[in-house]
């Protein structure tokens, strides 16, 4: 009994000491009530130095919170309870959030730096006239591969090369229904936004034939695995491909000719915002060419900021793997929100494919 009481007291004292330390370290509590902006973003998806710079320039204190999936983020915004002023969802989520009335309109008057964004990336289907969203980073879906590990000379100019028997057990796929089924649809020259059940079934059947070649269906660990040479080929997003190529120079990335997906992460103002003005200031700040270039340099993803491109390393900007030519971009398509019913169908089919892996 004495031991137990001692233990309880010790823990209480430790907690009190730690909480005091937190209190003195954490500027948020001391600035309570002051001008605060809560940014909700993916982890490691912004240069922290920029946050400090923003705080210095505007006097707004930034609280940075992180999420790991679009859907989980949306659930949090929908349920309320916390005030997010800026969030950075992917484009298909923006459509859903719009439908659910979770977004506030963006006032273009307050964002003069919008002129820096490449017109090609504005006024897209998922958000006409950019009423609700401003592009943050963009990229493609393609094939990353290690030519030195291939037994046959493949260049992945066509998706169908993935089915080549020489790739037995060598392919990593991302664990995402839209990307994988979309790839199969694209390989048959069908739309990756297909809602035709017969087409989807055909795509799934074709995928099941791919299973001998599939080493694993995984998530973000794909980066580590490809860098380490655990597999020769992976279907992945260009942003992650950039990370991989940075760590392993043998790797290269390509978008097959049949076309692929064009994705965007965008800044939006959720309806939970308590500092709409500050949110606009933040968006404008991030669109400043210097800041955008610094951020792109830190994160390693492709920026939609035309003016920032001039400030970036020419070698990167001219590299078609990171910034594909207009010709390639014509073949890329943005995901449409297909509605819950169809997304459910995509996921059921994808599950069926995964169960065929054993």
């Amino acid at each position: 009994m004495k031991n137990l009481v001692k233990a309880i007291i010790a823990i209480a004292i430790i907690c009190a000491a730690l909480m005091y330390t937190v209190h003195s370290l954490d500027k948020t509590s001391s600035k309570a009530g002051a001008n605060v902006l809560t940014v909700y973003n993916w982890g490691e998806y912004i240069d922290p130095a920029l946050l400090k710079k923003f705080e210095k320039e505007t006097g707004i204190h930034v609280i940075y919170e992180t999420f790991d999936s679009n859907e989980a983020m949306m659930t949090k915004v929908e349920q309320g309870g916390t005030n997010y002023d800026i969030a950075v969802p992917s484009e298909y989520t923006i459509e859903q959030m719009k439908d659910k009335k979770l977004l506030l309109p963006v006032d273009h008057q307050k964002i003069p730096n919008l002129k820096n964004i490449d017109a090609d990336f504005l006024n897209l289907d998922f958000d006409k006239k950019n009423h609700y969203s401003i592009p943050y980073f963009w990229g493609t879906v393609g094939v990353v591969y290690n030519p030195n590990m291939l037994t046959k000379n493949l260049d992945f100019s066509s998706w169908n090369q993935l089915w080549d028997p020489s790739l037995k057990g060598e392919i990593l796929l991302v664990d995402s229904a839209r990307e994988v089924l979309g790839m199969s649809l694209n390989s048959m020259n069908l739309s990756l936004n297909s809602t035709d059940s017969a087409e989807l079934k055909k795509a799934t059947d074709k995928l099941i034939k791919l299973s001998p070649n599939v080493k694993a269906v995984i998530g973000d660990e794909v980066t580590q695995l490809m860098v380490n040479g655990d597999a020769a080929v992976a279907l992945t997003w260009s942003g992650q491909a950039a990370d991989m190529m940075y760590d392993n120079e043998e790797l290269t990335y390509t978008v097959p000719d049949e076309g692929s997906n064009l994705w965007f992460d965008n800044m939006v103002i959720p309806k939970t915002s308590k500092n709409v003005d500050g949110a606009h200031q933040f968006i404008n700040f991030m669109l400043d060419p210097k800041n955008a270039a610094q951020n792109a340099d830190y994160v390693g993803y492709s920026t939609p900021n035309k003016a920032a491109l001039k400030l970036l390393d020419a070698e990167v900007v001219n590299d078609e793997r990171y910034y594909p030519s207009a010709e390639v971009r014509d073949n890329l398509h943005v995901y449409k929100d297909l509605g819950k019913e169809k997304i459910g169908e995509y996921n059921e089919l994808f599950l069926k494919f995964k169960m065929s892996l054993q």
Partner: protein
Amino acid sequence: MQNKRSGSITLVPYYVWIALFVIAPIVLVGYYSLLDLEGNFTLENYKNFLTPVYLKMTLSSFWYAFLITTVCLVVSYPAAFIISRLKNKQLWLMLIIIPSWINLLLKTYAFIGILGQSGPINAFLASIGFEKQQMLFTSASFVFVSVYIFIPFMILPIFNSIDKLSPALLDASRDLGASRLYTLRRVMIPLTMDGIKAGIQAVFIPALSLFMITRLIAGNHVITLGTAIEQQFLVTQNWGMGSTIAVFLIIFMFIIMAFTGEKKKKGASRRGKN
């Protein structure tokens, strides 16, 4: 439940917890399981669960949970026994627990590195002239990492029940001519049964709903009910179907508890006094 012991009062906060954090979520899960995507009442989800895809998944979840628990038990029992005979046993026990305080995702990434083609194990195999082995994305590596996660949960309760066994008892059994195996089977295991049971509960039940590492370590070659729920909630956003799978998981757990719960006879003889 009126008795002269301290029973009823101590249960108050515990019951409050059950009411707030167990019953409320169950009601919610039960309610959602009856909704379709549009929010209308339906039994469709239940019908959907009883299709081969989900039944196969259920079987495979149980199979892997069983494998994980068995391997865990086989590894942990001797370890707990040896530790209980060491000089600084409390310290050694702490050293078993400490690794579990380092973030699981980081440790999993470390395992991907260790088990991978260019990892230390394959480097070692290569250096002694063996061929490189594909260890990641196999069901064996999945079971291995799961066991790794659950080992402290098995060792602790077993240690607690072995620790109070006096070595003299085992010596006596040996002196009376019992074989090692016989002593283990007839003396040790029955006397440490409560600890073993607790360990099995602490491993088997959560193992049923493992997710993350099914993807990270098994590369989706193993798909469990936990994975499916995760996907339904977060990807498909079909909370109805996700909840339905959860309802079945809870039902399965109740069935297991009914089977492993105290049997009448044993209970009567132990608690014969009223």
